[in-house]
């Protein structure tokens, strides 16, 4: 009886049917029209991308399934996945794809949309890092590795700083840890250039 009980607890028995009314095909079409996402509909689902991706073994879906979800219009699943964030932009998938689909660009466009729609877990480090990076460069024109990591850790998991202190010390010892924040002169020029182009 004990084993059986554990079985019930550990299996996910939520109803997982997908109805066609939940599919947003217009969104799928719209994604395919973004720069770099042209080949979306010619995907064979061969699995080469997931096969070559170094991170696919950690992902909830993997690149192949993301492409499948996107082109069938399952927007929420795709945008709230952790797959898109674990993508390290190594471009292995894009280079190996027999349909020459720029999968990395699809991932980027989904990341952007997920940020805009706020569809990522609050304390998930990767989108937080991206946002801190964005703000920093916007403000100063340069990024500071130290301040980036600090800000990200404070927003997600401050205890991480303790575990990182060893590495921090090594970097300091070897003169590789810059504590200062560099700034460019023409920040205003950069900001006005950014303002003109931003989509946010």
């Amino acid at each position, binding site marked *: 009886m004990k084993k059986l009980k554990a079985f019930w607890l550990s299996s996910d028995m939520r109803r997982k049917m997908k109805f066609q009314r939940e599919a947003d095909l217009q969104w799928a079409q719209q994604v395919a029209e973004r720069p770099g996402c042209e080949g979306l509909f010619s995907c064979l689902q061969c699995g080469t991308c997931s096969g070559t991706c170094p991170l696919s073994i950690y992902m909830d879906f993997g690149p192949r399934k993301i492409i499948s979800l996107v082109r069938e219009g399952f927007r929420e699943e795709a945008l709230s996945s952790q797959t898109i964030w674990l993508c390290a932009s*190594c471009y292995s998938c894009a280079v190996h794809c027999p349909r020459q689909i720029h999968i990395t660009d699809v991932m980027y466009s989904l990341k952007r949309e997920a940020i805009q729609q706020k569809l990522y877990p609050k304390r998930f480090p990767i989108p937080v890092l991206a946002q801190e990076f964005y703000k920093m460069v916007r403000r100063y024109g340069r990024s500071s590795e130290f301040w980036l990591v600090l800000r990200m850790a404070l927003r997600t998991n401050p205890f991480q700083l303790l575990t990182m202190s060893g590495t921090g010390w090594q970097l300091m010892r070897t003169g590789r840890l810059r504590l200062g924040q560099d700034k460019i002169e023409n920040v205003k020029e950069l900001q006005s250039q950014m303002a003109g182009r931003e989509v946010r």
Partner: protein
Amino acid sequence: MAATYGYFPGCSLKGTGAAYEESLLTLFRLLDLSLQELKDWNCCGATSYMSIDENSAFGLSARNLGIAHEAGHRDLVTPCSACYLVLRKTQDYAAKYPQIAKSIEGSPAAAALDAVKIRHPMELLYNDVGMARIKSKMVRKWKGGPVACYYGCQLVRPFAEADRAHDPTRMDELLRAVGVPTVDWALKTKCCGGSLTGTIHEVGVRLNYILLKEAARKGAKAIVTICPLCQYNLDAYQAEIRKETGEAFDMPVLYFTQILGWALGGDAKSLGLGRAISGCGSIKEWFPKRTQEVEVHA
């Protein structure tokens, strides 16, 4: 071959990648090449900006290209792979996609798109300087063990211009030209995880563990890189890996510019050799502070 090349260091080379900048400048000096750092350059945005907003990501590169162009540079040397990719991608995508070109329209960058060529020092040494010239300037013999050349991702993918995407060999050839034996291994371009070591730490470290383990299994005594983030990832976590797995790699992770610079007579300090975190013992042995210049060409 230009007398002076434009130089875009990127944020890492001023911080964790300090040794890369030091050794690059030293090496170029030894080869009578001059690098002129771009005035008031801004961060390239790396992978993060592209994840937030596409147009401003390209805009960052556009400004840098504009600065390079206005300074009259036809070549822009970009040692960091991420910066290299972002700049190249801006040129490529602005040419392919009208909506991106539109966002750069009117700025000095618009002219720079075709006018400035993005160069990586590895490819520059291979193409512009040439093996023969490097060999002729060699003054020291290599005292270390065989090395595994690690190219990483963004230098050779998706633009396979600096070298082939599969089994690249230019770094191997450059090092062998100065007598450094290199090993054949299948993971030359397997991702180091990039910024994952800072965000999802265990996953990032594991990717580097795989690289260190395979390099060692193939008999390499050091890994040589061309990207500051790869170098950092492979260098900084070896002690942690030892705690987790019991495997002590103690492997120096060097920049190819450090090794070439050393072969051409540069001293340990100006090559940033003291900045390593792992494999310090081997480094001290292979790059002694006091050396006797060995004339290779009698």
